[in-house]
């Protein structure tokens, strides 16, 4: 059956996104409905339905791309399927009502490549997204999967591979941006103690809030990661590899397991790979979702079955990693880039990006942005292009205020720096970092003190507690920030916060602690006035910190527009509102607990917040 399907030529390929985002939006139901309808119309020999990895435009899921033609349908529901099948697949008429309409335009855009979200993207790590069924190794092979592996195993020496990676300028996509070629060289040169052996590790412990590129790659193209790891193993001389992936990514774990099994069946993993005499195999290690396990030494401790907490470096994993052996740890995205570099050459790869940062980077766009999703863009692209051209701008026409890059370890970049070309150095310069590629967009309604507090509460929660600065320091900073957002801050607090932040950055043990103060430091740097407003005038300019808000009801609006609808009084949790129908309602400030419910429920804008 499978053999037959392989040879079958179909007129139409319906690429249904089966990334986690779309799956949770019922894309598997869509797939079933499509198959049912197609069969109903007797088209099963002409049209095939293919589940793919994440398409990236998660905001618009569930997504269906029709090939050939690259027709992009979005936000489908099961009930839409019969109509779609009949119109498009049977009668050949495109159905524009399921197409995407960019925010500022009126006409829907039928073709995927014409949609601004996709137009500016350059796909390397995500090259196979939406084009293959990740559970079928053959489709990956058809898209040149394992071609680089053949090249690396038959035509290249380990040194040649490392030279190629070094020349490509590829840097670690996990955050710190350490040159990958150099890392490989270090591991290759490291003498393996006690009995030899080196390890390859793929770090898929993606923990940043709002970041999901590792998950997407593992879901959409697990073979790219496997291939990258085998090439890396050949380069450094490793015989065993581990993929450390969060257990909260069941789909990624499942697809990766399937991919590993298929690769093993094909002899692309295991002993004597492709008959070249090279041995290498990969195991999946599932993490329990501790953020700190994304730190390489903690990750290794976790793989070894020990308490997942970091240890001091040096020794670096390249010298003494898993079980004391030299170990090469790279991020999922880094590994996914490797086959392309080997295939198309370092020169091609180095031609993309900026002077110091080559290639592309995958970012996850989340927060106050129209096009939430996953984008792969060349290094050096400006924030403006990402936010406005790809991301489609801020919803509701609100003003862009800042973007948090690099997750809780990164920092906030303000509006003034919107034309910043993105690469490792420029982001660090701005007080943030590349991180794993999370981008949280914030609009005018965001309180920067509250944002800092949110990220601190995350790092405080996720601190392993080993070293004093991170354990006690994040707590101390969180206490101060909570104090400020509750209107109880003092002038000294800003100074103390700054001291703490700098000292923690200076003295924490691992990357988690060293970067934890970044949100505080950048918000202090760019939005100091907001801190001061919270402390001096006890006001939150964005009205986010409710404890600082003062709610009042405009009697005129209340009576004239709302006719004293009484909804606010009924919803008030603390009986602070008095008034009757058709009369102006009044909030008793002494009783008000500032929960903000009245503001939220008032349909007439009579409740004011100050």
């Amino acid at each position, binding site marked *: 059956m499978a053999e037959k399907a392989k040879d079958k*030529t179909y007129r139409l390929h319906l690429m249904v996104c089966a990334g986690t985002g779309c799956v949770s939006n019922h894309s598997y139901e869509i797939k079933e409905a499509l198959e049912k309808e197609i069969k109903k119309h007797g088209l099963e020999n002409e049209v095939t339905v293919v589940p793919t990895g994440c398409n990236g435009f998660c905001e618009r899921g569930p997504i269906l791309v029709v090939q050939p033609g690259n027709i992009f349908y979005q936000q489908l529901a099961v009930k839409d399927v019969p109509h779609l099948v009949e119109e498009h697949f049977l009668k050949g008429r495109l159905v524009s009502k399921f197409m995407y309409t960019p925010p500022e335009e009126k006409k829907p855009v039928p073709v995927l490549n014409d949609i601004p979200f996709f137009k500016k993207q350059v796909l390397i790590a995500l090259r196979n997204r939406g084009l293959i069924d990740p559970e079928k190794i053959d489709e990956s092979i058809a898209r040149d999967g394992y071609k680089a592996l053949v090249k690396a195993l038959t035509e290249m020496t380990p040194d040649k591979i490392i030279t190629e990676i070094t020349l490509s300028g590829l840097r670690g996509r996990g955050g710190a941006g350490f040159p990958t070629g150099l890392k490989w060289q270090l591991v290759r040169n490291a003498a393996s103690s006690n009995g030899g052996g080196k390890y390859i590790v793929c770090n898929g412990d993606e923990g940043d809030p709002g970041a999901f590129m590792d998950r997407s790659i593992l879901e959409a193209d697990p073979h790219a990661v496997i291939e990258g790891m085998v090439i890396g193993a050949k380069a450094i001389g490793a015989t065993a590899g581990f993929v450390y992936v969060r257990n909260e990514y069941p789909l990624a774990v499942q697809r990766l397991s399937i991919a590993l099994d298929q690769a093993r069946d094909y002899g692309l993993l295991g002993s004597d790979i492709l*008959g070249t005499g090279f041995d290498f195999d990969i195991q999946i290690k599932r993490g329990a979702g501790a953020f700190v396990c994304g730190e390489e030494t903690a990750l290794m401790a976790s793989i070894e079955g020990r308490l997942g907490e970091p240890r001091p470096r040096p020794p670096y994993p390249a010298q003494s990693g898993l079980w004391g052996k030299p170990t090469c740890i790279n991020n999922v995205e880094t590994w996914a880039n490797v086959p392309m570099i080997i295939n198309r050459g370092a020169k091609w790869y180095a031609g993309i990006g900026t002077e110091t940062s080559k290639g592309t980077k995958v970012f996850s766009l989340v927060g106050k942005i129209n096009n939430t999703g996953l984008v792969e863009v060349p290094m050096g692209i400006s924030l403006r292009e990402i936010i406005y051209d790809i991301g489609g701008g801020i919803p509701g026409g609100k003003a862009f205020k800042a973007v948090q890059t690099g997750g809780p370890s990164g920092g906030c970049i303000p509006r003034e720096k919107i034309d910043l070309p993105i690469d490792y150095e420029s982001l660090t310069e701005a007080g943030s970092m590349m991180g794993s590629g999370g981008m949280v967009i914030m609009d005018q309604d965001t309180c920067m003190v509250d944002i800092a507090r949110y990220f601190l509460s995350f790092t405080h929660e996720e601190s392993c507690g080993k070293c004093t600065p991170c354990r006690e320091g994040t707590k101390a900073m969180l206490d101060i920030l909570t104090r400020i957002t509750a209107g109880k801050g003092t002038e000294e607090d800003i100074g103390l916060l700054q001291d703490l932040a700098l000292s923690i950055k200076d003295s924490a043990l691992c990357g988690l602690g060293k970067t934890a103060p970044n949100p505080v430091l950048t918000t202090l740097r760019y939005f100091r006035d907001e801190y001061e407003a919270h402390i001096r005038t006890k006001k939150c300019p964005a009205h986010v910190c409710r404890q600082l808000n003062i709610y009042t009801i405009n009697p005129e609006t209340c009576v004239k527009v709302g006719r004293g609808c009484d909804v606010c009084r009924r919803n008030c949790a603390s009986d602070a509102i008095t008034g009757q129908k058709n009369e102006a309602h009044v909030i008793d400030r002494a009783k008000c607990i500032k929960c903000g419910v009245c503001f939220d429920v008032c349909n007439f804008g009579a409740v004011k917040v100050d």
Partner: protein
Amino acid sequence: MPKLKIEDLEKIREQVKRTTALREGSGFRAKVNVHMGTCGIAAGARTIMNAFIKELETRDVHDVLLTNSGCAGLCSQEPMVTIEIAGQAPVKYVNLTEKKAQEIFEKHVLGGTIVKEYALGIGSEKTDY
């Protein structure tokens, strides 16, 4: 499953590529567009479509894009096909039968010679894609 050798990998690649090539969206030397509006289907466009699919399969051709579209506006002369060789103006054929389709495929799509007796005209409007 037996372990693959390097040549096997290449074989799989070639084999699967044929079926998935459609998804790539570029690199075709010709595009065959069967007009499959209600009128077209009623006039037998499905047969034409299947004829082209069969041709592609039996001749093992992979660089020809077979697709369909709606009514071309000349319902009386359905079934219709537009054939567009890369870089050339599209040609419309009308009143097709299975046999005609085979001939057109062989002579025009593969051979590059327009089959004038079935053609409606050259250089009509371009399709969207």
